């Protein structure tokens, strides 16, 4: 039963990740993990800063739309 539950929550996690990446927002936890392991000396962005950063990257210079 717990196996099913953890499967379901993992599926939900992937679903959420996919939906967010579709609109250009990568996984925040992955980013935090990356900052903790690779740049422990630098402060990580808060979630809102992170979103803002991604917003600028998505609609900033040189990005083309779809057909």
């Amino acid at each position, binding site marked *: 039963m717990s196996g099913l539950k953890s499967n379901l929550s993992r599926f939900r996690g992937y679903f*959420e990740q*996919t*939906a967010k990446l579709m*609109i250009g927002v990568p*996984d925040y936890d992955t980013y935090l993990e990356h900052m903790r392991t690779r740049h422990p000396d630098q402060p990580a962005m808060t979630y809102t800063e992170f979103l803002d950063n991604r917003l600028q*990257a998505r609609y900033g210079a040189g990005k*083309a*739309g*779809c*057909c």
Partner: protein
Amino acid sequence: MPRILNHAPWLILAVLGAFALGTVALARGETINALWLVVAAVCTYLVSYRYYSLFIATRVMRLDPARPTPAMRHNDGLDYVPTNQYVLFGHHFAAIAGAGPLVGPVLAAQMGYLPGMLWILAGVVVAGAVQDFMILFVSMRRDGRSLGELIKAELGDIPGVIALFGTFMIMVIILAVLALVVVKALTNSPWGFFTVAATVPIALFMGVYMRFLRPGRIGEISIIGFFLLIAAILLGGQVAQSETLAPMFTLTGVQITWILIGYGFVASVLPVWLLLAPRDYLSTFLKVGTIVMLALCILLVAPPMKMPSITRFVDGTGPVWSGSLFPFLFITIACGAVSGFHALISSGTTPKMVENEVHTRFIGYGGMLTESFVAIMALVAASCIEPGIYFAMNSPPAVLGTTAESAAQVINNWGFVITPEMITQTAQDVGEVSILSRAGGAPTLAVGMAQIFSELFGGKAMMAFWYHFAILFEALFILTAVDAGTRAGRFMLQDLLGVFFKPLQRTASWAGNLIATGLCVAAWGYILYQGVVDPLGGINTFWPLFGISNQMLAGIALILATVVLFRMKRERYAWVTMVPAAWLLICTLTAGVQKVFHSNPAIGFLAHAERFSTAANEGRLLAPATSMDQMRQVIFNDYLDAALASLFVMVVLAVLVFGILSCLKALRSDRPTTREIPTGGATARAGD
């Protein structure tokens, strides 16, 4: 023996697919079920994915699971993030899916569903999916660089600049044509216009909510936004019924054009969080959700195909778009078979997030197969409505006249049975005053989708709701593409203009920003306006131009891929990209030359200009012109369009010449000359 057994299920799939394809192709006169098309398509996709894409991955590209990807090399948790392949597939698909695969097949249905279906299937397997996969591979091996940079690096600086300029022109055409689709759908439609207009305040509210009220709650606000959209559709129905409100939202094509131009300008200078981003969220989720829903509904409803498999219009006399099957069918269905714009996506964010090289097969090749399935669904939706209704919706007023009676008479003469009552009844069912001459694909698709959806949910009473839901779904992501495209075009233009006048290049400068945005909007707005006042309906003239430019970009991308294979010293396999590149060049160059020089004024711009000049010299006026000034304007526009088509032809020819030169140079070298990112410490090998 076991090896052969491994292939047994695939053999069964292949036989099943061939049988389904045979059933579709050989049906003469009798109506077949849409599921045959679905089975034929899915079997084709599975078998080609299993064998052809594997061949490309292992022999042509030699994908190496141990080789570090850009996401590994530059992992920053932001742009470069190793991402699960299914998650990345979703991202990639959402980026490539757009109006193209929905509109093209609908327009192509005037020749019957068979020619369109065969091109969609053959095109995607041999050309479209190969292009997406190859460009994703090439970009991934070069740190996720963009198409322009790749062409510069592999072919040289001059072809790089030429390609960049070509890309900008293509974008202008795409924006104009997409906006034209929206105008055609919303003209004299108070329900449609109100619903689409309501998305602006909804998006503004969402933007403010995400910025100030509950920052970062994307899921929550997207759900709220979705319910607001549904409310807007329901409210739109009330507006259309109201005697005071309906006239306020009943606008002519020209009025909507000016509103769109103004909107495009404002939307692309506003801060992105306020309007563009929230609209993008809504439209992306709505787009993907509706596509999934349409797939499920087609499977459950299994509608019969009412359009004949081949109509008399294969001879090129069709009313929806002019020109014979070759080359114009291959231009009309762009996305869905092969789309150059995907090369921009495959060299955009996706290659920076690939976790493992071998995933590119699923994401690149598989993603395009999925897009192709969307095109098949659009073809089904357009073919399951009465052919008479299809032609009433897609033929220009110059052919049909403006009343249901005149339209029914013309269409009956073509051999499709229809009565004026059927036309007015359909308009009533979908809650519109008239459905005549709504070319552009979106309304036809909306009628088809409404028919399929309402069979499962709500019956005939809900048809008007589903029709406007479908219109909203398309208008929303087209307008998002227009906003985002104008912004992107503005940055490109600032880059280009900055070469001559430095201060313009600063993207933060208000003057530079406004000038570049104004120029960009003016460029697509001008073409849009021409299309709207065109008595042939605009789509007739401009959709082929869009198709030509989009397929040419695909040709350029495939030339790039060919050069890369030569430089890797894998010319033995270069046919994989050379064959589709050659086919695309043959189609687009023929079509481009015909658009300029064809003697039929409906096809050739110069012949059209000639016809107007002759009339003007004799002092006669031809529709749509109502004065001599307008006659001169039409003639000027014809020359402009001819120049544009010639320009595309020259851009492609130039890239072709540079491509051949690069290939010859690579042949003379005795070792690989391409520059890829290193294979990584543990797996480094000399040479390869």
